[in-house]
């Protein structure tokens, strides 16, 4: 009966961070980010060994059966270290998609493969989440055609889960006939987007077992928004930590710059904005599993608020670093761009706040 992390959760977060700090020193990050696919086989394997692949997969399907709060902690760590690894779509949203709209057989077939790290699923929905770009898919005679832009975790994905306008989702193999997947390197080179062109592709699964497919899709969207918010929390915390460290070292005008109120207050402003976000992300994640009536509102608000705070922290932390913050040298920009990505994917703040209003019944959808 408490508002906070369990000991296990604290341990999990720390061990994941330790792993990432070890695997992703700046030169390694630079190398892995270069291709812009958001995927590295070795890092992926390592994360799997830590149990990340099956984090949300129920134990009966070979996963750890943990909850969204654990997923948020993982996202925070990945954001902190700007890890080029599929997560939000491939390991959170896809699992939630199967759990909320897959039938027993589909779950039995696919969840173990996700947990084993074999199925890496890129995922996309357009209007429902506020994604921009092409979003015109039609399913006719069991064949899928049309275009869908901006699938998350699409780089080097084995499959794509494409949402239809009615909330059903079709799982497609990456190399199947009629499937053209174009990698779009994003400004955040640690996560890619993929544009999908389909010409009569045959889905390997159609998730349609929910009574209310749109509601099921919204739950997937909300899960995605929570982990993007958590990712921003981590990335922004990283930028703040480094700004404070830099302000404690750098000397100008004969003084450590952190002793100037100008710089100190920038850091204080960042901390004041960011610190309450931690509890907000915790609650939004927890609500997905435990407080269904607040889940949608909490997810959208967390996504919107973290986007606003993240943008401010990204700018201020860069400013504290002066010219060095603007160079490539310190690699501070990896987190900066992570925050950019999190904001623009799955609906910007205005869209998320709109969804929060709908979720509260203030306005019609």
């Amino acid at each position, binding site marked *: *009966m*408490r*508002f*906070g*992390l*369990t000991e296990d959760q604290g341990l999990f977060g720390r061990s994941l961070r330790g792993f990432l700090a070890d695997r992703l020193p700046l030169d390694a990050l630079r190398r892995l980010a270069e291709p812009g696919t958001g995927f590295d086989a070795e890092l992926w394997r390592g994360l799997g060994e830590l149990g990340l692949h099956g984090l949300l997969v129920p134990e009966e399907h070979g996963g750890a059966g943990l909850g969204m*709060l654990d997923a948020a902690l993982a996202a925070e760590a990945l954001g902190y270290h700007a890890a080029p690894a599929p997560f939000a779509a491939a390991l959170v949203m896809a699992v939630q998609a199967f759990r909320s709209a897959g039938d027993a057989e589909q779950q039995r077939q696919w969840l173990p493969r996700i947990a084993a790290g074999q199925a890496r699923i890129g995922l996309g929905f357009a209007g429902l989440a506020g994604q921009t770009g092409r979003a015109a898919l039609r399913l006719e005679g069991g064949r899928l055609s049309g275009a869908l832009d901006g699938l998350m975790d699409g780089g080097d994905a084995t499959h794509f889960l494409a949402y239809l306008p009615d909330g059903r989702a079709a799982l497609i193999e990456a190399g199947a006939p009629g499937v053209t997947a174009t990698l779009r390197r994003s400004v955040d080179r640690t996560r890619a987007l993929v544009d999908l062109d389909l010409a009569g592709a045959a889905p390997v699964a159609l998730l349609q077992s929910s009574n209310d497919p749109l509601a099921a899709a919204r739950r997937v969207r909300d899960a995605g928004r929570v982990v993007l918010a958590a990712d921003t929390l981590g990335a922004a915390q990283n930028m703040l930590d480094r700004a*404070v460290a830099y*302000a*404690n070292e750098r000397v100008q005008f004969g*003084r*450590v710059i*952190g*002793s100037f*109120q100008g*710089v*100190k*207050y920038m*850091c*204080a*402003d960042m*901390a*004041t*904005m960011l*610190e*309450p*976000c*931690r*509890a*907000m992300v*915790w*609650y939004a994640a*927890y609500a997905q599993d*435990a*407080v269904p009536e607040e889940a949608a509102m*909490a997810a959208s*608000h*967390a996504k*919107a*608020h973290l986007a*606003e705070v993240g943008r401010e922290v990204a700018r201020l932390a860069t400013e504290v670093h002066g010219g060095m913050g603007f160079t490539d040298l310190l690699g501070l920009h990896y987190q900066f761009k992570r925050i950019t990505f999190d904001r623009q994917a799955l609906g910007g*703040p*205005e869209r998320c*706040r*709109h969804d*929060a*209003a709908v979720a509260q019944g*203030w*306005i019609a959808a």
Partner: protein
Amino acid sequence: MDLTLTPKHRALRDEVDAFIAAHRDAAPRPGGGRKRPDRKALDWQALLLEHGYFARTIPREYGGFGAPHDVIELAIIADAFSRAGISPGIHNQGISMLVPTLLEVGTEEQKRRWIGPTIRGEVIWCQGYSEPGSGSDLAAAQTRAAVEDGHFVINGQKIWTSSAHFADMMFLLCRTEPDKSKHAGLSYLLLPMNTPGIEVRPLRTMTGRAEFNETFFTDVRVPVDQIVMGRGDGWHVANVTLKYERMLLGDPNKLQQRLEAIRRMMEQPGADGARLLDRAEWRDRLLRLQGEVIAARNHNMRLLTETAEGVDSGLGRFIVKYHGTMLGHRLASLALDVMGSTGLLYEPQGEVAEDDPATTWQIDYMYDIGLIIGGGSSNIQKNIIGERGLGLPREPKAAVPAGRN
């Protein structure tokens, strides 16, 4: 994270709801705190204490309810009173600042003597901190207390003593060790306001009301044992109190109540029949603030848990006052905009009657700036956050006092 309600919690929720339903007519109207509690408020307070809806975790021997710390219980109680719009009891500087200070650093005797009467609302305290020459620089206090035959003899002046004109007691920061360094020369005294030599003069603020006072001390004599901790420990004790003041001033429940009130206004049709809540630019402003209020409330839950578990929240605690007061002002700003030109009407009723909504919001809008400034201005808060929260270096001492260019 475990916020599921146990059967015990559900029972408490039902119990509080039933209590409110049964006793709501006995409740004074919410707010107050700027005047001496009347009979109705005192009776209500006694009822709340009896049921453990106030001072729930303060030990029984000091007049509290003596329940173990449980964040959810406290949240359930606060939420029930907030939903019903019913006064959750008296909040004043004695209860919110002095009581936790005594619980933290007071002697057993001080706790037994003062906490009970204070939480019952019988003893009203005011705070003797700021001086005209030292608003932000509290440690520069010049009010002197010299020791003479077992008494401190106090001379000097305090300002911003908010309830001095009806308070029974004052907690006072003054200089008892003039030979010691600035911070080491202070002591924290407790003294009755009817002690001879104390003069209280009202101080009018921008709201047009006299919400504060100046308090003058001329040879005011206080027994030397009326001190919290020892001589020279005043700065330490004052900082304990300031910690609680920061929490009080950033109270997220107040923010939530404001947000709700604004939403209700925006749901009313305007002169043209349209609701502002249906206008996206207005709704988005409200939602943006709602996001911030949610963050503040969740953060508060985290701090309550950490307090209950004896964890030092450090940074998490330092930010509360700055964050909460700025957000409060922005909420009041939105409220004024929602009301538009009719919200300009302003006729404060003082203590005689209830203010109309326009006047209330205008007062909040201004008073919030007072809160941003008082209890350690935003700049002081940012120093604390930067230095104590983030470990940044202090401002170096100036080689020569800075003057004009």
